[in-house]
């Protein structure tokens, strides 16, 4: 136990849209919830990693401490695209690993509102227009829509279609089945932004956003927060039997950035990145994909989830289409994936997502997930990707006592 680092407490707010609470309210709620869940006090905490994207230059961590206890501890405000929450979690992990303190707090929080397509904001129009080369590509005008698309639904559609090109048995229907599953799973999760089931026909017949991703196959913009308290094995030994029983071991914590690949010039290669992080995590934890009782992976779009079955080695190489066809990732399937409803239905508050998935897996490993509990869950994996790119993977195991 001594060398390991553990999740002692965790909490998440319901994901959704909050008009009457701000970012700090949401973050403070999650932080206080995680401390109470772990049976500890803010005075016990030696480091605070705070993940947020949209206000990443605005001292979000310090503002949360001003609500829950200004103890003077170091705050690391972290931004790392959609891997922001997991990076904040890992910041606390690293401080404990380095021996700087024996307990840390990580919060991921985001308030997005009903934002529509990310990155699609109106641009200022000028009366006088003079074409002049600008930037690293010498562009003379906005190339979105002229030289393809760089917006998220299209980028991840292209990532999925690339997989369809390289592998048999993958098409619109297989991608749609992913969304059908996650929306069905979300019905059992009271913390999910949406809790509504849709038939495969409804998913495929919904408004087309970026083929093959329909509206039901794109995650919503969401408000929410999630938090975790991490503790060293040595400190955990001094805590109560109940705290030790509920603690969940962090068997692997991996963060990487995208290695160079030839095609990554024009389209982020989320496959090599995830595969390398996953292989490293399995090696560190001494766990094989077959040992996993549940996985929470980064289904920002249905096309993304399908390719990650393969990248995380949950299915045979090239076999992601067949795997969804035979219901491998359903909650009663071979390896349940996104039983929370995933980003597609639980929602995706960018900075919160990478801790919310740790909350979900921890809750199952403790046997406290209520109606959506995966029976006798012992080992789980969380995965997030921030485009640009960052990949974070955590493997968690129940304490066994």
């Amino acid at each position, binding site marked *: 136990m001594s060398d390991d680092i553990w999740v002692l407490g965790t909490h998440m707010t319901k994901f959704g849209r909050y008009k009457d609470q701000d970012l700090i309210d949401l973050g403070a709620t999650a932080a206080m919830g995680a401390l109470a869940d772990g049976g500890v006090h803010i005075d016990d905490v030696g480091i605070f990693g705070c993940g947020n994207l949209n206000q990443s230059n605005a001292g979000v961590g310090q503002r949360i401490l001003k609500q829950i206890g200004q103890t003077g501890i170091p705050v690391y405000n972290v931004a790392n695209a959609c891997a922001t929450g997991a990076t904040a979690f890992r910041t606390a992990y690293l401080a404990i690993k380095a021996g700087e303190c024996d307990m840390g707090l990580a919060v991921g929080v985001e308030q997005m509102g009903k934002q529509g*397509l990310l*990155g*699609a*904001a*109106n*641009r200022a129009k000028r009366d*006088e*227009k*003079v*074409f002049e*080369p600008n930037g*690293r*590509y*010498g*562009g*003379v*005008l906005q*190339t*979105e*829509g*002229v*030289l*393809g*698309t760089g*917006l998220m*639904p*299209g980028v991840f*559609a*292209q*990532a999925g*279609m*690339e997989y*369809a*090109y390289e592998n048999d048995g993958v098409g*619109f229907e297989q991608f749609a089945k992913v969304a059908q599953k996650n929306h069905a799973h979300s019905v059992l999760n009271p913390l999910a932004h949406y809790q509504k089931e849709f038939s495969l026909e409804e998913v495929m017949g919904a*408004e*087309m*956003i*970026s*083929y*093959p*991703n329909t509206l039901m196959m794109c995650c919503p913009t969401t408000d929410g927060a999630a938090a975790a308290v991490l503790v060293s094995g040595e400190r955990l030994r001094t805590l109560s039997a109940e705290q030790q029983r509920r603690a969940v071991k962090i068997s692997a914590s991996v963060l990487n950035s995208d290695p*160079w690949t*030839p*095609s990554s*010039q*024009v*389209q982020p290669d989320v496959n090599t990145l995830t595969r390398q992080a996953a292989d490293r995590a399995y090696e560190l934890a001494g766990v094989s994909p077959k040992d996993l009782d549940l996985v929470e992976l980064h289904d920002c779009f249905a096309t993304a989830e399908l390719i990650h079955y393969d990248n995380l080695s949950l299915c045979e190489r090239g076999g992601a289409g067949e795997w969804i066809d035979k219901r491998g990732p359903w909650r009663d399937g071979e390896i349940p994936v996104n039983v929370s409803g995933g980003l597609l239905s639980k929602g995706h508050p960018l900075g919160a997502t990478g801790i919310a998935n740790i909350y979900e897996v921890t809750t199952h490993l403790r046997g406290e997930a209520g109606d959506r509990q995966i029976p006798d869950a012992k080992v789980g994996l969380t995965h997030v990707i921030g485009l640009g790119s960052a990949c974070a993977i955590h493997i968690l195991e129940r304490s066994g006592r």
Partner: protein
Amino acid sequence: MASQIPVVDYLVLDADPHLVVNACVACGARFFDRRNACASCAGTEFRREPLGRSGKVRSFTIVHRAAPGVPTPYVSALVDLDGGMTVKSNIVNTDPTPEKVRLGMPVRLTTFVVDSDSRGVECVAFGFEPAN
């Protein structure tokens, strides 16, 4: 004829419009942008290399909901060029439907005017059209 400017500096407008890359002298890795060093091997010497004008569709999406001002639907695609390098642009001169645009479809580079500025200078972009 009005003067023209390419939409990006890796598009060369001559008798046979084509794309160019900065290729790492040490390892051959190819880049569309200007470089500080090579992302593959950290080398610092580069040479300009022209790319092929034909290729195959490696992946595509049909964009229906886009940024404001972008006409829809349109097809964005990743194209594997003959002779190497993957490039992203629109598939043009065919219907934007999954029936007309297919994975692995042979395509060729084409250029067209997308806009002109207050001086009458035309901005020329590139896309790919079905080769057959």
